C-alpha cells in the first residue's frame, strides 16, 4: 500500500519471469499458423495478464510438474502459440504433436487465451481451471446472483457473499448496493452459448 502499486507489480512480475525456463524465449518474428513457442513480446503479454490474476502463484503455473505424456517422469509445462491462440501444454505432448501438420492441428492441452489482431492478449474461459487453482483474489457470490453472472451480467454489490482481502475490498465497502462490484469478463456459460468463439 505505501509503495507505488504499479512498481511493485512490475517487480513481482520480473521476479516471476526469472522462474521460467529460458527455453521459452525463442526469438521468432513471424506470426503464422505455426505451432511455435511464444516470442518475447508475446510471453510478456501473457504473463502480465496471468500475473494480474494470480500474482505470485504464477510460478506455480509455470513450474507445475505435469503427469501427462507416456513418459514415467513428470515433465514441465510450456506455452505454445498456434493460430493466434495460446496453449498451456505439457512438453511431452508438444514433442509428439510435431508430426501433425499445422493445418490439421486443432488444439493441444489447454487453450488459455487468444491474441487479437491488434496484438492484445485476452484470457478465455478455458483457462479457468488453471487460474482458479492459483488465483489470488476470489469472490463468493450469493446463489441468486450466480445465474445472473452466468448470463453475462456484472456482479452487483448486493450479490457479493465473501471477498478475499485485497486492495479493492475497502472500496467495495463504500459502494452502494447497486454499484458494480465485479466486472464480468467471461463465464462458463460461454461453453454453451458461444462455442464457436472459444
Amino acid at each position: 500500500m505505501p509503495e507505488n502499486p504499479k512498481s511493485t507489480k512490475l517487480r513481482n512480475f520480473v521476479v516471476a519471469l526469472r522462474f521460467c525456463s529460458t527455453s521459452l524465449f525463442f526469438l521468432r518474428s513471424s506470426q503464422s499458423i505455426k505451432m511455435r513457442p511464444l516470442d518475447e513480446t508475446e510471453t510478456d503479454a501473457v504473463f502480465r495478464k496471468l500475473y494480474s490474476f494470480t500474482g505470485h502463484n504464477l510460478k506455480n503455473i509455470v513450474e507445475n510438474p505435469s503427469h501427462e505424456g507416456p513418459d514415467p517422469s513428470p515433465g514441465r509445462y510450456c506455452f505454445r502459440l498456434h493460430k493466434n491462440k495460446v496453449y498451456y501444454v505439457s512438453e511431452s505432448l508438444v514433442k509428439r504433436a510435431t508430426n501433425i501438420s499445422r493445418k490439421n492441428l486443432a488444439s493441444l492441452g489447454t487453450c488459455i487465451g487468444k491474441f487479437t489482431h491488434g496484438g492484445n492478449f485476452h484470457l478465455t474461459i478455458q483457462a479457468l481451471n488453471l487460474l482458479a487453482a492459483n488465483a489470488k483474489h476470489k469472490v463468493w457470490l450469493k446463489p441468486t446472483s450466480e445465474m445472473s453472472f452466468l448470463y453475462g451480467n456484472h456482479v452487483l454489490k448486493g450479490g457479493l457473499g465473501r471477498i478475499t482481502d485485497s486492495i479493492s475490498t475497502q472500496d467495495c465497502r463504500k459502494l452502494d448496493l447497486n454499484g458494480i462490484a465485479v466486472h464480468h469478463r467471461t463465464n462458463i456459460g460461454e461453453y454453451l452459448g458461444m462455442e464457436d468463439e472459444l
Partner: protein
Amino acid sequence: MAPAALNKTKGSKLQKPPPKKKPKNDIFTEKHLKEDDILDDSGSSDEEVEDQEEFDIDEQGSASGSDILSDGDDTFTDDFLQGNDDEEKVSSSDSGKDSGSDSGSDSDSRSDSDESDIEKKSRALDERKAREEKDAEEEMRLNIAEEHDEFRLPTKEELEDEAHRPPDLPNIQRRIREIVRVLSNFKDLKQEGTRRKDYIEQFKMDLCSYYGYNDFLIGVFVEMFPVNELIELVEAFEKPRPICLRTNTLKTRRRDLADVLLNRGVNLDPLSKWSKVGLVVYDSQVPIGATPEYMAGFYMLQSASSFLPVMALAPQEKERIVDMAAAPGGKTTYIAALMKNSGIIYANEMKVPRLKSLTANLHRMGVTNTIVCNYDGRELTKVLGHNAVDRVLLDAPCSGTGVISKDESVKTFKSFEEIQKCAHLQKQLILAAIDMVDASSKSGGYIVYSTCSMMVAENEAVINYALKMRDVKLVPCGLDFGRPGFIRFREHRFHPSLEKTRRFYPHVNNMDGFFVAKLKKMSNSIPTVAPSEPLESVEQASVPNESNREKKIAEPLKKTGAMKKGGGLINGVSDNRNVESPSPAENRKKRKFPSREEISKVREEKRRALREGKKKTARKSGTKE
C-alpha cells in the same frame, strides 16, 4: 297360380297366429292326413285342392274384412316374412298345399279361437325372433370361426383396394398381430395353400406401412430376428431411450453430483450396476444440459451405449491412445477421466464443424492430455506412424440403424448401397486402426471397434475382414451383458471367435442398438492373404492407395534393411526390387491392375529367373576361379 299361392301362404300364416297356435301339431297331422288322401285319390285330389284354394281366397277376403288391424300387421309382416317365405317356398313345395289345407280346416276352428288370436300372434312373433337370433348366432359363429380358425391373407384385390384408400391403421395392426399368431403355430393355423413366405411378405408390408419403414430395412430385420422379437424391437424404436449422464471423475464424484442435481430438482438414479459413473435422468425441472454444474464440467450428457466401448477399451494410465472419430467428445473425455489426465490422447475428427464442439467439451471437462487433430482416419497411420500407440478406439461412422429412436429418417433413407458404402469405409478404417497399434506395447495392443448400427455387414463382416487381413484376434470385451455377435448369418460364415463380440438392443438392454468388439494385436506383421471378395472390392475402389501403401511398406523396409516384420511377409528382402518394378509398371497401366494371383505368379517366375541367374554367375565365377 304362384302369386295366388304366395298370397295364400302369407294369408294363412298371418291370419293364423291362430292356426299356429295349435303349434305345428295340427299342421303335421293334417299334412299326414292330406298325404294319405293324396295317395289314395291322386286324381281327384287336385281338384279338391283347387277347390280348397278357391275357398281360401274367399275366406281371406272375409277374414281381411274382419281384421283391419291384422291387415296392418300383415303388410309389415309381409315384408319380414317374405324372405323367409321365399326360402321356405323353394325348399318345400308342399307348403302351399299344406297351408291350403290348413286354411281350409282352420277356417272352421277360427271362430272358436278369437281369444287365442293374440296369443298366437305373440307366439309367432317370439318364434320369428328366435329364428332370427339363431341365424344371427350362426352368422356370428361363422365370422368368429373365420378369424380364429382361419385368418385369411388379403387377396390381391383387397390389397389394391387398401392401397387406394388411406391406410386403415387399426386394421393393419390387427393383421400384424394375426400374422404373428399364425406364424407362431404355423402348422395348425395356416391357411390352406399358402406358404410361410406369403405370410411374411404380408407382414413386412404391414410393418412398413404401420411404422413407416422402407422395405430394405424391414427385410433385414426380418432376417435377423424372430417375428415376436421383431415386433418388440420396432416398438422399442418408437420410444426414446432415457437420458443418461456420466460423472466427470476428474472433478467430482457421482454421489456428490447426484446430491447437487437432486437439489436442483432433477429426478435421477444410478444407471446400472455395470457403471460407477453413470446416472439416468427421468425428468428434470431445469434444463439438464444447461445447469451450472454442466457448464463447470462436472458431467457429460451421453447415451448409455456410449459408455460401453470405453469400458471395453479400459485405458491405463500413461498410455498412448487414439480416438479416431472423437467428436463430440463424450468417449474421449471418458478415456481421459479413466486415465486421470496422464498419458496422451490423440483425438481425431474428420469434419471441421464438429471440431469446435470437441475442443469445447475437452476444455469444459478439464482434459489436459489431449491433442486434437483434423484428419481423415485412414491417413492417421501416415501421420502418427505404424506401431506407435498402445490402444485405439474406433467408433466408426455407420448407417445409424441402432439409433432410430433418435433419428427417424433412418427408417426411410437407408438402402443397400449406403450400407455397403459404410461397410467399405469401416473396413479401411479398421485396418488403419490396427496398423497404428504397437503389438509389443507393454500394457496395450488393443483395438476396440464399435458402431451404433445393427447391420451384420457393418459389424461382424468388418471384424471378420480384419481377422483375415491382419494378425489380430478377438478377446472378451469385459462386458458380461448383451448378446454375442452372429457367427453365421444367411450365407455368411464368420470366424467362431466372433461370439466374443457383443450386440446390444433397445428392447433387451434399454439402450440404443450397439455393437462392440475388442481385438488384440498379436504381432506387427501383415500376413499374406489369398484374394477374397471384400479385399477385391477394396482394391477396385482404392487401388492407387493400395499400390502406394505397398510401395511405402517396401521402401522403409529397404532403407532399414532389418526385417522388422515376421516371416509371414511377402515383401522379403529379395523381393523388394521385384516389388518395385511391377508396381510402376502397374501404375502405368491405367486401372488394369492384375489380380494378386497374377502378381504372385509373376514374382515367382522372376524369383526363379533370379536364382537361375545367380546360379549361373556362381558357376561361372566358380569355373573362372
